[in-house]
């Protein structure tokens, strides 16, 4: 049976975790819960509509729209629900907007719950987008909480996009794929923060095509793998013009955690400047000792170091 359309306490808590929302947000929004939209609002400049085939949403942002926001959070509290959603964002020329997505799953049952969100962004000339995507899982059932987001970004001339991707807690299995194509002068910044624990598994792959002169990409992942969890970070930059690209994977490994970092740089132009950095290591002993001299216990020191690292 589906939950009633009014949000219950668990749904409200998930919404708080992934979108920082207590109630319905300001501006345009669509709140999806257990496979159905339970609230939607368009504004004069931002139009949210269901696709004709019912597989997802088309979000159209008018050219020149400034300082507006779109929230499209998804919450799942029904054990065993598996869904695939296609959302397309059309960001008009010279618009400047914040888009907050994210998915929270609370699974108290024995069946797996899964949400696969496929987001495509068509960013018009000169537009600026800040995109925030948070993933969160809770519930003590044996059913897994699975999220497999696919993000595709198509950036026109001189557009910019800043993506903040956060997955700190409770998601058992994640296979994330992010692709971006950048025209001349376009700038992409990605800040990914990831923590896995227990038996969790997380894969995050990027392919960024720098196709235009003056385009740039900066993809930075900071992650912590605890307990018996596994992470794979696979970032590939392809430079086919006079462009600059930087990718960085900085990881803390704890307990029996495992991390695989795969650097990938492909230069097809003599003017492409591409850099990759990767570092994996445990928390430095002297960091813990320093915080202990400030009165923290060893466990408190570790927590502070990780909190700072993932901030």
């Amino acid at each position, binding site marked *: 049976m589906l939950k009633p359309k009014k949000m219950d306490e668990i749904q409200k808590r998930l919404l708080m975790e992934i979108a920082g929302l207590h109630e319905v947000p300001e501006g345009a929004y669509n709140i999806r819960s257990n496979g159905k939209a339970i609230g939607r609002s368009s504004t004069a400049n931002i139009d949210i509509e269901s696709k004709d085939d019912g597989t997802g949403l088309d979000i159209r942002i008018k050219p020149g729209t400034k300082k507006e926001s779109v929230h499209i959070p998804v919450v799942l509290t029904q054990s065993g629900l598996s869904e695939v959603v296609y959302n397309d964002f059309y960001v008009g020329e010279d618009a400047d907007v914040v888009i907050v997505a994210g998915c929270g799953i609370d699974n108290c049952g024995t069946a797996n719950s899964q949400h696969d969100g496929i987001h495509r962004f068509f960013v018009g000339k000169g537009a600026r987008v800040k995109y925030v995507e948070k993933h969160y899982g809770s519930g003590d059932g044996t059913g897994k909480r699975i999220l497999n987001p696919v993000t595709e970004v198509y950036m026109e001339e001189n557009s910019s996009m800043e993506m903040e991707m956060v997955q700190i807690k409770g998601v058992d299995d994640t296979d994330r794929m992010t692709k971006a194509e950048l025209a001349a002068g376009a700038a992409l910044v990605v800040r990914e923060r990831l923590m896995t624990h227990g038996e969790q598994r997380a894969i995050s792959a990027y392919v960024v095509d720098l196709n235009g002169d003056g385009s740039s990409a900066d993809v930075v992942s*900071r992650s912590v793998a605890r307990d018996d969890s596994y992470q794979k970070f696979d970032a590939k930059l392809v430079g086919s013009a006079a462009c600059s690209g930087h990718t960085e994977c*900085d990881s803390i490994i704890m307990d029996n955690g495992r991390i695989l970092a795969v650097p990938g740089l492909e230069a097809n132009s003599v003017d492409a400047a591409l850099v990759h950095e990767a570092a994996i290591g445990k928390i*430095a002993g*002297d*960091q813990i*000792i*320093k*915080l*202990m*001299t*400030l*009165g*923290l*216990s*060893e466990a408190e020191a570790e927590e*502070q*170091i990780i*909190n*700072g*690292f*993932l*901030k």
Partner: protein
Amino acid sequence: MLELKNISFDVDADGQNKEIVRGVDLVIPDEKLVVVTGPNGGGKSTLARLIMGIEKPTSGRIYLNGEDITDASITERAKKGIGFAFQTPVRFKGLQVLDLIRIAAGKRLSPASACEYLAAVGLCAKDYIDREVNSSLSGGELKRIEIATVLARGSVLSVFDEPEAGIDLWSFQNLIHVFERMREEISGSSILIISHQERILNIADEVIVLKDGRIAEQGDREKILPDLIGTASAVRDCRVLEMPERSGQTC
């Protein structure tokens, strides 16, 4: 008052037992600034680390205000009022200067209150409070932030391990003023500095010379210092290890 009774510390080096500190008896009285000097490799830094609990003595006992703290952990000693500034400050990715000062103070200080500790070490607070404590900071900046964290603890006994190491001349001169001010406000606490800089020895109440892990000399500054001048235990010029950084006082 801190008291060390017959403290020894051995390490195993290439299968051979090496004595780093040998039977040291030492008292750091209340409201005194004590400087431990002596040649490199004499056991000075080890002594400081033994006091903080970072190393545990092979034998002997340590007392803080009469309480035996020999078996106390680093955390317990910190909570009992011992503060420690590292010779090489630790860097943290992500942790900001404000975070570190708040942890040191043990409370959620307002940024304005935290800034006072930075100002006390000659840093322009607004330029630093949001900075990460990472490799974007110079050695001199890190050193002063390290000292600010010790100030923020309001310790009963503050231990500084070679505060002059790794900083430029300008920072060093500033550092002397910081210690002079701490000396003026020493009421209710005491300070132990590991250093062989003459200018730091000049503000000591007592001087201890540690050589080959043993106390070679100990007493009032007036008595000890004159014989040390010109030796490796009282160096006149600061080593200039990096380019002078910009002044932090022109906010």
